């Protein structure tokens, strides 16, 4: 149990540290890389909670895919430093206001924090002796939560169509093999047999 506590504080501390470094890093690419490190530590916290599937999906989807997306976005943004310096004074006030708002909210929440006496009995994770975490999710996700599952499918479809519509340009000629055209091509259209007289040329 000591190791459990140590690992929790290690992952939680590294999560907070890398979140902070994400905010203060100068280069946007460094921010994205610290964000990736934060996601990895979040996956570690999920493992400590006993939800292995979520931890692994966190690594695959967030670290493997979403973070790559962030890197692409960062690389596509043109750093216009001159423009940024002029407008940054104005922009600086909004995050400060939001920070004060959420910070005071956190103070109120943490000030009045107390555990409900029955909190430890409300643990919804199934006992690992009987059933593994992935099996427990699989048993209810596709039957009990079938509607939500199909809605997730529609959301993914919407994301796919939206991404294509937003990035697609007018179709130019594409480099694509047309197998039927190649097979149906006649010999006389492509090859011309010339009888060349000697010393005269074509």
């Amino acid at each position: 149990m000591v190791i459990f506590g140590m690992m929790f504080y290690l992952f939680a501390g590294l999560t907070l540290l890398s979140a902070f470094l994400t905010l203060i890093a100068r280069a946007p690419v460094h921010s994205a890389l610290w964000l990736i490190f934060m996601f990895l530590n979040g996956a570690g916290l999920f493992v400590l909670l006993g939800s292995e599937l979520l931890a692994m999906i966190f690594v695959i989807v967030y670290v493997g895919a979403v973070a790559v997306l962030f890197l692409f976005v960062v690389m596509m943004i043109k750093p216009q430093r001159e423009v940024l310096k002029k407008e940054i004074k104005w922009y600086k006030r909004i995050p400060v206001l939001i920070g004060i708002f959420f910070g005071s909210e956190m103070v109120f929440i943490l000030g009045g924090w107390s555990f409900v006496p029955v909190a430890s009995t409300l643990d919804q994770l199934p006992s690992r002796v009987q059933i593994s975490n992935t099996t427990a999710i699989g048993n209810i996700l596709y039957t009990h939560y079938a509607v939500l599952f199909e809605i997730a499918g529609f959301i993914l479809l919407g994301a796919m169509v939206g991404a294509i519509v937003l990035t697609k340009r007018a179709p130019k000629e594409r480099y694509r093999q047309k197998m039927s055209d190649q097979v149906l091509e006649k010999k006389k259209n492509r090859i011309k047999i010339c009888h060349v007289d000697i010393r005269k040329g074509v």
Partner: protein
Amino acid sequence: MQTLLREYFCLVVFFGISLFISSFMVLLAFLRAKQNPYPEKLTPYECGFDPFDDMSHKFDVRFYLVAILFIIFDIEVAFLFPWAISLGEIGVFGFVSMMVFLGILTVGFLYEWKKGALDWE
């Protein structure tokens, strides 16, 4: 809970050892190697790019499109794993619900195929 963490403990040991070995090798190279940096040596080299240029506008938006489409099918495959494990439990209904899910995403796949989003113009 305890058994789960015991199973993952070897992973912690593995990460510790690999962290130690990698940092030890970097540290050793840093301390012991002869260091003679000069501007030519420190120039970043990247194949296919001009290193003396602003790199921010060279990326085509279609890389981004490929990444988004990858994420979507990544999530689709991630949904398949628990389904495959508990297929015996959830019966025909679970099977059909997954097939409907795959059908919805296949519609998107056909759309993207026909739109030519996978082609490089």
